[in-house]
């Protein structure tokens, strides 16, 4: 049996019965990586000897933690002590953090096996994993297409069965969109649900860490493992963590689901639209009450996001200046020369573009017209959701307007790339949780994602709807041929 193809909850059962050992799982994963990684490039840093050694150490003891022996891959922007953590950027070349992110401490405390780091868009700036300094990751369903981004490596690795569990981060859709186009499950928690201590910051009012997994139950397991208040992150919320796993199995009879008309726009891909419509019919058959609704300020979300996120990024990325870590340019004449040359050499095109755009929006003379204006319109976007959630338990939309596009198709026009996040961005601006699950395939056999958005701290509800839908379909059981 190829254990790497199984879900996490199934593997936990097999481990409990002692039918298999953690080393069996680890070996199966390593075999798969050796077969497919050359064509996928989903991993940024991976050393099979280190992973095996770690697995052996955990396997030695009897089962203790809930994730005992379970392999987990981590996006390359989450700090793992003494392991390369580079945000897929040249400017963090060689960086090995002196501490663990809180999510890593939590996973290690549950006896999970840290396997390695996954590829990503540089500093999470992108929707295609093409801006990585390690080259693009490819979509397991079609190697000429992008795996989404920025957590494209995490999603592709799970989709290709190189990984069971992985962690991503989501600032404007970076967990949900890659999960959608790779045919796996990705959940962005509520702002404050998961500690961000040790997540290298992109946009501090938007970033969240979350799970990417093969099915909804696995997402619930991994979310429960990483959630909760952390005194090292003062934005983490002091709100009890539900047992997401038992909550998902309740039925969905009588739940009220809103379908916002702004997410079904002219010109959107017909195959995507039809799959979402069929999914809505299915949810109705299961007893949910689906009704049309409106989130009237949706069309402003991309504009607000690219002003707010770049402004915050320009400030967060000021720390990469050749002094404390990573790259320092050579042959420098002065301090100023060191800053400018290090940042010229260390940052890729998209990082430079976003830092300059963010700096511009914050600069004297432009602040009111751009950054402040965006914050004000953000209030309208947030209110749209507050209004909708007075009436609905959750909101159903497509995850992306299209299935995976071709590698290189959108790299020359940043604005076109930005518009591929059009359906995922609003959730970050409003701080609400969202999940993407598989809901069909195009005629070219590319996965289509269904997005379910929920109220603040109501991950239980979106997981429950997702689980009920998933169990009535077999989209999540399809595997790419690699």
């Amino acid at each position: 049996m190829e254990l790497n193809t199984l879900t996490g909850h199934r593997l936990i059962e097999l481990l409990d019965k002692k039918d298999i050992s953690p080393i069996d799982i680890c070996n199966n994963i390593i075999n798969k990586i050796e077969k497919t990684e050359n064509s996928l490039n989903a991993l940024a840093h991976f050393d099979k000897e280190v992973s095996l050694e770690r697995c052996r150490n955990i396997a030695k003891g009897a089962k203790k933690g809930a994730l005992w022996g379970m392999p987990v891959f981590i996006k390359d922007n989450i700090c793992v002590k003494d392991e390369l953590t580079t945000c897929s950027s040249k400017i963090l070349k060689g960086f090995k953090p002196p501490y663990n992110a809180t999510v890593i401490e939590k996973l290690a405390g549950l006896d999970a096996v840290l396997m390695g780091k996954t590829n990503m868009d540089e500093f999470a700036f992108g929707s295609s994993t093409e801006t990585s300094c390690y080259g693009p990751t490819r979509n397991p369903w079609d190697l000429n297409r992008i795996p989404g981004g920025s957590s494209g490596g995490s999603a592709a690795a799970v989709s290709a069965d190189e990984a069971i569990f992985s962690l991503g981060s989501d600032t404007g859709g970076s967990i949900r969109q890659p999960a959608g186009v790779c045919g796996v499950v990705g959940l962005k928690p509520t702002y404050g649900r998961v500690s961000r201590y040790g997540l290298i910051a992109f946009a501090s009012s938007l970033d969240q860490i979350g799970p990417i997994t093969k099915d909804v139950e696995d997402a619930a397991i991994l979310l429960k493992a990483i959630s909760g208040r952390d005194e090292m992150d003062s934005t983490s919320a002091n709100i009890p963590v539900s047992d997401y796993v038992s909550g998902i199995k309740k039925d969905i009879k009588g739940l009220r689901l809103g379908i916002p008309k702004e997410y079904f726009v002219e010109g959107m891909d017909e195959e995507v639209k039809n799959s979402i419509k069929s999914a809505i019919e299915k949810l109705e058959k299961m007893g949910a009450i689906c009704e049309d609704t409106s989130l009237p300020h949706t069309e402003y979300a991309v504009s607000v996001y690219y002003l707010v996120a770049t402004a915050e990024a320009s400030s967060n990325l000021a720390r990469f200046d050749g002094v404390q870590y990573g790259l320092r340019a050579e042959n420098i004449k002065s301090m100023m020369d060191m800053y400018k040359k290090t940042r010229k050499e260390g940052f890729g095109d998209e990082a430079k573009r976003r830092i300059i755009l963010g700096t511009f929006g914050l600069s004297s003379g432009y602040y009111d017209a751009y950054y402040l204006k965006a914050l004000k319109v953000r209030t309208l976007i947030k209110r749209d959701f507050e209004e909708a959630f007075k009436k609905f338990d959750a909101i159903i939309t497509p995850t992306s307007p299209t299935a995976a596009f071709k590698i290189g198709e959108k790299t020359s026009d940043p604005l076109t790339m930005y518009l591929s996040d059009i359906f995922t961005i609003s959730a970050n601006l409003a701080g609400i949780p969202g999940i993407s699950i598989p809901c069909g395939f195009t005629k070219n056999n590319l996965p289509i994602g269904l997005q379910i958005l929920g109220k603040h701290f109501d991950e239980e509800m979106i997981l429950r709807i997702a689980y009920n839908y998933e169990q009535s379909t077999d989209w999540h059981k399809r595997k790419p041929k690699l």
Partner: protein
Amino acid sequence: MAINRDTVRYTANLARIELSDEELDHFTGQLDRILAYVDKLNTLDAANLEPTSRPLEMKNVYREDLVKKSLSASEAIKNAPDKENNLFKVPKIIDTEA
């Protein structure tokens, strides 16, 4: 035009990024198109709206000011490209082109 070459050069300098002439041309066009797109925000009257800088209401978090275990200086500095006696070492600051 929302932004020109001089403004991009000026802003890149604020952000401490050196740009080649080619990058300057390339970014000016792209940023101009992005700013033209975000201009749609000006069709909304936002004058009386409160800005939202974080998605959830948050209170300041206080804690007791206690000495706790933290990284040693040598651990904290181990990734520095250049260091001496547990200090970050940088080029001379005087002579800087402002």
